[in-house]
């Protein structure tokens, strides 16, 4: 325990040194925020439990600073991120529960009318910090006018690879296009150092890379009007490519859940996978010298681009205030406080960029340049595309995502249990049930 703490302290000291670099952007002089929290306000916050220890440590420090400054008591509860959704839903349903919930993906789009309008706060923060990235608006400004929540950022999912093994296979880094990527995967497989990507019901890892795969070739679940368009020549190409890719994977990926690729990677059994920066963080802070030795060898890159680009799906994180709260002003004040540079910037550094910023100005945060290996995660929100693209977000998109329609389709086609054509048709049928008019 104490060892780990010391490691963390060391990491923290490094980051603090980096933080002294000046941040250069022009703050909008017009951005002003005046609001007096209710007297005697108390807040309850429910958030997802940390993926990296630095996150929660710094978050709680900021919370303490908020209490010290405003006198508002804040209780923070942590739940596994997949359990936050049902809890938030119950809160929305019953009209009682935490004042603020840090949710994921399209949570806010399931009960927009239960959420406090935070347009003023979003405008203030947007103005002050260089504007919100489009993904934040897609999720939390569904009608293009009113904000129903404040983006917190996104846990980027990127390529995590072993430099030495890629070099041994003849590649200096992850190729930028899908053809080169396939060649690399084949070469890695031939060298006996294969990669692996989750194809089981892994809510995070499988969904992220499978959506990238389909999108890279131009496939999409629905069009703008909400008509299911997954059964398309573009998807077919993606699935055929996925099938070839799968043949280079380490065996067993069909049963992989979210933790699987982390532990296999840290055990040195795979050369490449997709993940958050948490693997790197874990290796850095590991007491096991074998795992620790991986640090210099681990590197990250963006997904390769297919014919239709390389837009990716990452775990989007939001902050929602529920209308039932007795202290709406205090709740807004809390979120404002946490999003201001003094807190948010520190927090990004403490979690070594596990959560990428939703506000453009934060891309100047030194965490992204302190270690070049952090850089690929910088643009996670900037490039993020919500699952359920290109339709509206809501019950249909949430349902289709939760039912693993895209993941099952890719897995069926890749494993050969169905032909790509059949897998695609089946996915379309399943999706149509959610997107029924």
């Amino acid at each position, binding site marked *: 325990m104490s060892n780990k703490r010391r490691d963390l302290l060391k990491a923290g000291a490094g980051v603090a040194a980096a933080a002294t670099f000046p941040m250069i952007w022009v703050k909008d002089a017009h951005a002003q925020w005046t609001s007096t929290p209710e007297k005697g306000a108390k807040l309850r916050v429910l958030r997802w439990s940390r993926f990296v220890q630095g996150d929660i440590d710094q978050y709680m420090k900021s919370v303490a600073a908020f209490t010290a400054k405003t006198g508002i008591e804040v209780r923070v509860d942590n739940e596994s991120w*997949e359990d936050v*959704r*049902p809890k938030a*839903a119950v809160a*929305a*349903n019953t009209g009682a529960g935490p004042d603020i919930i840090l949710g994921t993906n399209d949570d806010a789009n*399931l*009960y927009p009318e*239960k959420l406090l309008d935070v347009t003023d706060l979003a405008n203030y923060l947007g103005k002050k910090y260089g504007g919100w990235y489009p993904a934040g608006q897609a999720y939390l400004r569904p009608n293009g006018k009113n904000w129903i929540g404040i983006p917190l950022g996104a846990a980027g999912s990127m390529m995590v690879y072993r430099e030495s093994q890629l070099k041994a296979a003849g590649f200096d880094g992850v190729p930028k296009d899908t053809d080169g990527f396939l060649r690399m995967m084949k070469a890695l497989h031939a060298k006996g150092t294969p990669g692996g990507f989750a*194809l*089981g*019901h*892994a*809510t995070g890892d499988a969904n992220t890379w499978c959506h990238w795969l389909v999108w890279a070739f131009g496939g999409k679940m629905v069009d703008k009007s909400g008509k299911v368009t997954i059964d398309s020549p573009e998807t077919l190409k993606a699935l055929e490519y996925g099938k070839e890719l799968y043949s280079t994977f*380490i*065996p*067993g*990926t*069909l*049963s*992989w*859940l979210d933790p*699987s690729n982390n*532990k*296999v990677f840290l*055990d040195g*059994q795979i050369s490449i996978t997709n993940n958050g920066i948490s693997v790197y963080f874990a290796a850095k802070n590991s007491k096991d010298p074998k795992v620790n030795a991986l640090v210099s060898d681990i590197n990250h890159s963006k997904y390769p681009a297919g014919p239709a680009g390389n837009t990716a799906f990452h775990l989007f994180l939001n902050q929602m205030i529920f209308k039932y709260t007795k202290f709406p002003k205090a709740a807004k004040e809390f979120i404002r406080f946490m999003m201001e540079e003094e807190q948010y910037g520190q927090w990004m550094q403490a979690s070594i960029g596990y959560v990428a910023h939703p506000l453009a100005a934060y891309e100047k945060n030194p965490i992204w340049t302190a270690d070049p290996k952090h850089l690929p995660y910088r643009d996670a929100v900037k490039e993020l595309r919500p699952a359920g693209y290109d339709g509206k977000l809501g*019950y249909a998109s*949430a*349902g289709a995502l*939760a*039912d*693993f329609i895209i993941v*099952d389709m890719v*897995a*069926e086609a890749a*494993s050969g*249990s169905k032909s790509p054509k059949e897998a695609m048709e*089946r996915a379309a*049928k*399943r999706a149509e*049930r959610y997107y029924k008019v």
Partner: protein
Amino acid sequence: MLPAGALLLVFLTYPLGLGTWLGFTDAKIGRPGEWIGAENFTYLYGDSVARLSLFNTFFYTIVASVLKFVLGLWLALLLNKHLPFKAFLRAIVLLPFIAPTALSAIAFWWIYDPQFSVVSWLLVKMGLIDRYIDFLGDPWMARFSTIFANVWRGVPFVAITLLAGLQTISPSLYEAASLDGANDRQKFWYVTLPMLTPIIAVVMTFSVLFTFTDFQLIYVLTRGGPLNATHLMATLSFQRAIPGGALGEGAALATAMVPFLLAAILFSYFGLQRRAWQQGGDDQ
């Protein structure tokens, strides 16, 4: 009477009634539903994943229950013999049942891991196989792997309960059978089994109910994957209702399990508690 009635009402009737009612509405998470009749059920009837989950549930329940019964009875008969350290052995047998399901499920998750499986490792070291077994990656392998874990967990319950039943059979019945010249097999068939049927009926009803509604094991091991091959109605119901947000549909799936459960109960009640047979006669 009154407190008991109130308890039943609050903790049993109300939730069950609410769940059933939800199944007939289009309730979503965060939004109360409207009555839509049997639409959820017709929808599920045409849904390939729901149908697959129905098949999986039956397959899982039947295979696991039969195995649990056969192994449990066998174990009970063994434990009923005069063994050294009898009490100790009986306590050990109960262990799998005592361990919390979530914990034993995590243990099995490691045992079945495609990269870290101790079973695969052992077999590879012994030179019996040359690559790791894909316990949870192949649909049929995954079905049998989950069934195995369920059986491992469920056998002690069956065995210990049947053992209790065995010990209530009066020795004089066996003496009488011996005097009539019955051999071991006849004693089992005409004394043990008929005397044991009421217990068997109860224990197997419970066992079937537990297996049919299993959730934790699947959720930890596979989340219903690979390719939905291990999705049971209970896990699919959760997936649709909570992460998926379709409360009404999830409730409908859960409600759809009730007739099957009732059928299992009625079968054991009427099928296994036949008195005439227990008393050595033939059923008329």
